[in-house]
């Protein structure tokens, strides 16, 4: 069971502002899905390795050779929040 408080904490971890008045509704929705996921508890996975990749690839590497970068204009083309070639954002604190 995920509590309203946990929903707010997870909201903070995920940087999604959750309106206090909505945390109950979120908790209910998330719990109905988590409830469904509980069925996995039935599965015996003792000694089963997790599958992160379906392929058995290893050592995919690229040589240390330079390729073309974007221009400053291209790098900044998708924002209006810029100054002197930098991205501009609110302060951190």
């Amino acid at each position, binding site marked *: 069971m995920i509590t309203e408080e946990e929903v707010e904490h997870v909201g903070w971890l995920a*940087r999604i502002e959750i309106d206090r008045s909505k945390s109950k509704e979120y908790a209910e929705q998330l719990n109905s899905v988590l409830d469904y996921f509980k069925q996995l508890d039935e599965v015996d996975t003792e000694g089963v390795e997790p599958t992160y*990749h379906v392929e058995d690839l290893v050592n995919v590497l690229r040589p*240390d050779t*330079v*390729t073309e*970068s974007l221009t400053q204009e291209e790098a900044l083309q998708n924002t209006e929040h810029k100054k002197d070639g930098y*991205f501009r954002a609110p*302060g951190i*604190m």
Partner: protein
Amino acid sequence: MAYNNPDGVMIGLEIHVQLNRLKTKMFCGCSTQYHNSQPNTHVCPVCMGLPGALPVINEGAVEASMKVGLALNCEVTDRTQFHRKNYYYPDLPKGYQVSQYDYPIVSNGKVVIEGEDGELVVRIRRAHMEEDPGKMVHMGTIDKSRGTLIDYNRSGMALLEIVTEPDLRSPKEARRFLDKLRNILEYLDVFDSNLEGSMRVDANISIGGGSRTEVKNISSHKGAERALIYEIMRQKNLLRRGGVVTMETRHFDEARGVTTSMRTKEEEHDYRYFPEPDLVPLKVKDRTSRLLDTLPELPDARRDRFVSQYGVPEMHAKALTSDIKVADFYEMVAEKVDPKVAATWVADVLKGELNYRDLTVKSFNVEDMVKIIQMVIDDRITDRSGVEVIRTMLDSGGIPMDIVQQKGLMKAEDSVVSSAVDEAIKENAAAVEDYMQGKEQSMNFLVGQVMKKTRGRADPQTVREMIISRIK
């Protein structure tokens, strides 16, 4: 004498080393040569975290990391992989850092440094590869900022994070460890310490078996020593007043030389590590023996060789090899002139003058050094003049012969000195008499007279000896 560590200090370091001698970044082909460039000009969809872009591991970074591990006597992990470390920060363009978690590329190494009481073995817990975030410029101070400007040129630079066990017992040992590490990294040619932000240190410190604090944001070796001295003092004062040290992260304010608590909400981390699905595992242990073969001679080995090959004293050998550029410089000089004399000139004189001016050995060239030493060996200039030539060259440039000539530093012919001595004795009978009566200063006067006559080209010690032998 054994060091008894009166405060029970335990220091462990986490050092982020930028593998800035690589040509490209960790996961993309952007050039690493951004240091003198406009912001956001060394970026691509990958290192800017644009939607849809995918990372590919730089083989050079993998091998450089392995080389460092091998030089630090580490084991290479059989199968290693990258994880995502999830957290939000403006300089982190994907909202996660691609790093390594439970399978770092190398682990379990050691480095021997000169500790408080002789050799100290510092254990290396692990070293893992990761990517550097971008760089933020605060408009105003960090806490009262009107905004942040972000440049992603640094984003994606290959980092190796080296983690030690808490084996260091004083700020001085921590600094020595960092110096030694830097030296090894430069010998390996994976790292240039002169570039801004090339090595960043976090230090864990506890005293008397208490809780440890982590000091972040240390950007120099001197800074590390200062931060640790401050933090030990702070913890001791706290305990003396009956307080307890709590486990926390502290920020080092380089300008003020103090550490401050950083317990904000942003610091409550839950990194939610999971394997990076866009990358596949690495199995590179089989490259170990090939890489071992390519490993260059490291500082300790080179120091021993200098002692045996050139017959220089241990102390000089250490000083010469503690910086690869100085060691290379010395060996080139030693090829042309007597290695023992060269060792004194490079280790004592040149290094001292460079340090005094905050310069590196790059500011001097081998041929000039050889010429100066040769002149001293041939007795054409005095040691003092040799030093003066070096100083002049460092301060205002020029070539050795010109400086010697312009400053009239060439030693006078012996006959000229000899007749000047005779003249001085003849012309200053009273002074000679005074000296004979035991008045030491009179000798200085007489030597001064000879120096005047030879326009300073004589060696004062020799002149003194000549006068004494003639008046006795």
